[in-house]
């Protein structure tokens, strides 16, 4: 599968991010095209979530260039990313526990009529959105603190899809989900691709990655460590790229058990 020649939706290069003594991202580059699902993989602490936060404007990069559809942009705060059409589901879910589902979905972009919150319209759209995503939540007026972990995750995902995002970043969206819900989220990712959105999906589950992603970008210790076309790459290659060597505990086990 050849990558399209149009300018990418988002292109990063030379991104650095440091937290005190920890250099979380070192000279990272990444391109995401519209209509593509890119999986971002890497071991714990590789810098995946940090990269997502850089793009989302939550933790702006120390250094590096970001181009949005061919034009250089500066993303210094969450608003900047939202304006471009970048929607994010964070690993730590980022919901306000005391607000209800409707309040969380529309937080920061409430619908108002002459300065007054239009609760009815927001609730109607919430129900419509949850229905299209076939998400069942018993009562959209309950504080999200009262929801189960998986329900909270689905709320976080719907929150990202509200509005008309062009790029959706999902940081381990299926981590708290059951089998059925995981399949639904993966279906959803495919539907987003069909609608021509760009998707950046972080997951530790290489099975899921192979199932839905077009390309896999590997981060290791804060650096790029490979970019693969899923259709032509074996899981083994990806694993060795994640762990950094072909001779390590994971591949040894795998070869022994003849799994890969």
């Amino acid at each position: 599968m050849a990558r399209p020649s149009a300018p990418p939706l988002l292109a990063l290069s030379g991104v650095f991010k440091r937290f005190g003594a920890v250099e979380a991202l070192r000279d990272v580059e990444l391109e995401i095209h519209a209509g593509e699902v890119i999986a971002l993989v890497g071991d714990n602490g590789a810098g995946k979530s940090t990269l997502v936060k850089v793009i989302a404007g939550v933790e702006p990069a120390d250094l590096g260039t970001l181009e949005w559809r061919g034009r250089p942009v500066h993303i210094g705060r969450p608003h900047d990313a939202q304006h471009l059409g970048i929607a994010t589901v964070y690993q730590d879910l980022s919901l306000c526990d005391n607000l209800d589902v409707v309040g969380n979905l529309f937080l920061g972009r409430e619908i108002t009529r002459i300065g007054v919150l239009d609760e009815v319209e927001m609730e109607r759209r919430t129900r419509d959105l949850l229905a299209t995503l076939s998400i069942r939540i018993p009562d959209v007026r309950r504080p999200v603190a009262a929801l189960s972990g998986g329900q909270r995750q689905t709320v976080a995902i719907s929150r990202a899809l509200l509005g008309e995002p062009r790029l959706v970043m999902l940081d381990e969206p299926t981590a708290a989900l059951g089998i059925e819900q995981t399949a639904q989220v993966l279906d959803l990712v495919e539907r987003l691709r069909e609608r021509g959105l760009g998707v950046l999906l972080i997951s530790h589950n290489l099975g899921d990655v192979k199932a839905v992603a077009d390309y896999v970008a590997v981060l290791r210790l804060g650096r790029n460590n490979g970019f693969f076309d899923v259709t032509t790459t074996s899981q083994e290659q990806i694993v060795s790229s994640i762990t950094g060597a072909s001779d390590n505990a994971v591949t040894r086990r795998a070869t022994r058990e003849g799994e890969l």
Partner: protein
Amino acid sequence: MSVPGGIGGPTAHGAERFADAFGRKLGGGALGSVPVVLGLLVIWLTFQILNPHFLSPRNLSNLSVDIVGTGMIAVGVIFVLLIGEIDLSVGSVSGLASALFAVLSVNYGMPEPPAIVLAALCGTAVGFVHGFFTAVVGVPAFVVTLAGLLGWYGLMLAIMGAYGTINLDDQGLVAQLTNFYFSNVAAAYALAALGTAAYFLTAWRDVTRRRAAGVPFRSPAEIFLRTGLLAVIAFAAAYVLNQFQGLPLALLIFLVVLVILDYVLRRTAYGRMIFALGGGVEAARRAGVNVAWVRISAFMMSSTMAAIGGLFLASRINSVSQTSVSTDLLMNAIAAAVIGGTSLFGGRGSTWSALLGVLVIQSIASGVALMDIQTAVQFMITGGVLLLAVVVDTLSRRAQWGTRPGLVFRRDHSH
């Protein structure tokens, strides 16, 4: 029977639905104002049994004016509590504002209206300073406002230094705040009727819009019930007030402030941001909320209301002196907010808790004063009630949000 809330909702009868919702609230711990209303009734009945003058129109009317000063301060404190912070300076700020007003109007001969505005703006400025150090510099609000408690008290002493006690003009605007009564009986009844009608119309319009949009709505029976309850309380209060001197201006202003600020908190995007901060600062920040600004604004709200409350307190005694700032003013204002049902943990509460809480506190004070027992008893009762309120707050929070420690003790001041 038509089924309100059709979409996926249980197809039970109205009353059952109501009971169900109540049960869920009980289980969920979000009882709201039910415990405090029951508590208030118990307090009133107890004092009435101990002293038959307690529920007299005269005493209740005085009570309705006495609550306003502290109540105004408590309303401001609620904004700060909602974002999960605390403001310990409100007593000193209210004293500072009343001192500023007294010196400007009495000693410098400034007309009262601009002096009132300046006193209120002085509060706003003080709040900005607190908010700046908390939200921008990152010092915990506890420490910033503790410094404020000392510093603004010192500034008030400096302003009052040469004067000792300043008597306000008895015919002046500020004196009238708590001295003026609408003695025409129509006034109190008109207010009761207006309030009830406004409540009903708002609720009804909401039902109509929700029905049209196809989202669940309250059953008409529930709305009638609520409106009926409100009407009974409002007209009973109007009747009692009319037995004495009529509708007090101070009470009218307090109610108007409560309604407006309640509207701001529940129905505007700004109010939503205040609640969001109390429910998760990081989530709010990622949603694009300007966290620093919302924090600063909450402190400005708190100090401005403290200044306004100070003017009402000065009006009640018609003078300002160096002893205007008492420590129990601060404690009462915060206790009122918490007793009324605003959570100390942030994110949960309403302006009406200021009214309910301050009613509880002033009722105790007034009952104790009538019975001529020492204030020592008053402090002990109020302390007990406060502890009870915080226990209810903590338990209901635990019931509703589970015992996730990270949530229960999530009052960090990190950014």
